[in-house]
């Protein structure tokens, strides 16, 4: 290798190839996103113009109009996502703890059940839940949508919570118990604080999943619950690319923020424990 690098010709070729490949990859990733941004700020954009004829914020004003449907759907989405996080974590934290720390009969089967919603296509589930919910008058209600989101989200939460508890050093708990702490005190002052970053990560995962969920809401939420993804879909299918792109941009913000921050919450020691 060192003999090769000493020859300037080959090093130049190498550098050029590297720059070209990185540039192509950057275009593949940011090109589509750039197009979305352009549409978000386009007042008028007709074929065959390369760029919008007119830029402006009219459509943003429309999206954020106090009584606009977009703002309403933003709050619907955030509300549903918060309720989904509460419901998922309320059942996932105990389950995760049990999987990580307690002796469970049929542990493999239980793990398999919690793996299922990630490992089989979800469409059959949504289709039939919608049919049952229709008869129970749960279609088109926030509760119906939250239940569908939670059934899917809690699985992720169980896996991450279980990994977070498994990563907590047992000897720290034992030390606390040996010094006379009650089981409850040990849990609230040792186990829970140490597992907290992982639990926060699982809450964020569930929140994002719920915020971005389309298919389940499409079947169960109609006609009364319009979340952001549904609003985006309707705008896009109706040919209103500006509103669709602005809604898409709003949905992008939390996704990209989480992508940039994920490693702060999910430390390597927790990641290594997932699925154990």
């Amino acid at each position, binding site marked *: 290798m060192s003999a090769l690098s000493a020859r300037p010709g080959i090093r130049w070729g190498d550098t050029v190839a590297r720059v070209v490949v990185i540039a192509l990859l950057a275009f593949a990733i940011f090109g589509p996103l750039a197009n979305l941004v352009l549409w978000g700020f386009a007042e008028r954009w007709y074929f065959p113009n390369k760029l919008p004829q007119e830029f402006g914020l009219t459509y943003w004003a429309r999206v954020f109009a106090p009584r606009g449907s977009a703002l309403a759907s933003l709050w619907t989405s955030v509300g549903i996502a918060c309720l989904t996080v509460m419901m998922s974590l309320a059942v996932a934290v105990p389950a995760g703890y049990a999987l990580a720390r307690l002796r469970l009969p049929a542990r493999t089967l239980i793990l398999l059940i919690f793996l299922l919603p990630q490992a089989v296509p979800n469409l059959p589930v949504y289709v039939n839940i919608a049919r049952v919910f229709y008869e129970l008058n749960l279609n088109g209600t926030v509760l119906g949508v939250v239940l569908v989101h939670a059934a899917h989200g809690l699985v992720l939460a169980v896996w991450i919570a279980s990994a977070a508890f498994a990563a907590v050093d047992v000897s720290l708990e034992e030390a606390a118990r040996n010094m006379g702490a009650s089981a409850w005190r040990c849990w609230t002052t040792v186990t829970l604080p140490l597992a907290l970053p992982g639990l926060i990560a699982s809450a964020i995962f569930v929140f994002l999943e719920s915020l971005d969920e389309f298919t389940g809401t499409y079947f169960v939420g109609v006609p009364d619950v319009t979340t952001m993804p549904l609003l985006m879909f309707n705008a*896009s299918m109706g040919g209103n690319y500006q509103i669709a792109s602005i809604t898409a941009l709003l949905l992008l913000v939390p996704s*990209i923020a989480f992508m940039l921050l994920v490693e702060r919450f999910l430390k390597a020691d927790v990641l290594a424990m997932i699925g154990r």
Partner: protein
Amino acid sequence: MNHRSWAGLALAAPALAIVAVFFIGPMAMSAVLAFRGKDGGFTLDHFAKAFEFYSNDLLFSAAIVVLSTITIGVVAIAIAGYLTLGEHPRTLAILRWLYRWPLFIPFIVTAQVMRTFLAKNGLLNHVLIGGGLIDPLQAQSLLDWRGIVIAFVWKQAPFVTLLVAGAMASIDRQHIEAARNLGANRLRVLFGIVLPQARRTLMVGLVLSFVTMLSVLSVPMMINPNSPTMLTVDIAYRINSHGDYAVANALCLMSLALASLGAWFYLREAARKAERS
């Protein structure tokens, strides 16, 4: 069963109940409804109808998902391989920062993004024309099967890359150094030493992507809603336009069968590996 295992079961019970009622129950219902005739007896009519109307779409779905999975695998191996074996620190840093952007972007946003980017008057064509690579008259919309594949790869490749790069990073560096010192080039090290050790993770990532792509509704609906299209679009159509849950469920079971085919390939690989070791 002792006291502690009862406690564990009690803690896990609420979560298990929710998954059972809101996931496994509907899944079982799908299997029942697909085979139940109007009189309540067993029938294969719904499958006959599903095959008659949608066999093209079944093949189309299978082809799209297989092609996407293979492409995702190639992209993931290339990027993760370079991240593991690359030697140029700045390129490594840029690549590591760059590849994961689509990681948490939802499918529905990906669909909207590609709907604008790949259209006839989208940015892709404008850049190709501006760069002199194609004639303005050659510009064509990619919003057909190609659009679906591109959207799937764009969204799923970073996920598989993340998993594979993680697995490759945990390989003992000494193996790699030893091979390099013996004169193996990087490509050989990648396929001879690094990839075999990350193979399981790669398969898990690919199977998960395969299954996920099979049940995505938004991407085919927004990019290529006309026939031939993917089964998910047909299922939504049967329900929304005809209220026809029987044929819809038959189609659901067909896509489940495709998914289990993917899982079966994975299990067979895993079993073979277990036999060898």
